[in-house]
């Protein structure tokens, strides 16, 4: 189990807001590379930009096609993505897990949603303390 402090970000009003994030190593063709992901329990999927996908040495067409939408229901706001399985390393516990990330050809943030990532951890958000606790649930290793 490990705990991460929330990360401060600036709001339109100039105020600071804190968000749960975690840095994870993504296994690319040659090595692991570190990215800061938002831990988003409200998101169905994990998401990352297409440029990161290009580093994985995989074929775009091999991924399952998904259509993503956010707040706007407008047809033109729906974005196509492809879901690929990716190995990531959680440095704090030295564990490599395999997760599905939906890659999008837009400049999108790095998001860890519920699908696949949340299967590996019991995640507790502590807003007053601005901390997230990750309890790894696989006891086989």
């Amino acid at each position, binding site marked *: 189990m490990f705990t991460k402090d929330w990360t401060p970000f600036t709001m339109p009003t*100039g105020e600071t807001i804190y968000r749960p994030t975690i840095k994870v*190593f993504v296994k690319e063709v040659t090595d692991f*590379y570190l*990215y800061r992901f938002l831990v988003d329990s409200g998101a169905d999927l994990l998401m990352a930009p297409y*440029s*990161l996908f*290009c580093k994985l040495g995989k074929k775009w067409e091999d991924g399952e096609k998904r259509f993503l939408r956010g707040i706007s229901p407008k047809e033109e706001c729906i974005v196509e993505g492809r879901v690929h399985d990716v190995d990531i390393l959680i440095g704090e516990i030295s564990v490599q897990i*395999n997760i599905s990330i939906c890659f999008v050809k837009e400049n999108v943030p*790095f998001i860890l949603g519920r699908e696949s990532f949340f299967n590996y951890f019991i995640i507790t958000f502590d807003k007053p303390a601005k901390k997230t606790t990750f309890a790894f649930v696989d006891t086989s290793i």
Partner: protein
Amino acid sequence: MRKPPIKVELKDKELLELISEEEERWFNSLSAEELAKHGGKYIATKNRQIIASSESLGGLYRQLEVKGIQKVCISYIDDPRLVVIY
């Protein structure tokens, strides 16, 4: 069938430094003004410095390639003009 989790010992000192408490404390102490400069951009950090910033991740990779730097932490900084509801 998904691959099962495996133990991977991280031995690379540069990578370990990137996930150190010191590095995280430094990032979390960045001022709102500093972060706002990079709003809507991807940034690369290392050794408690922002070493590259770009509106696209591809652009950030190109900057890092020119500088010959590989091991960094990449973060996306939301545009401070927008309220985020992911």
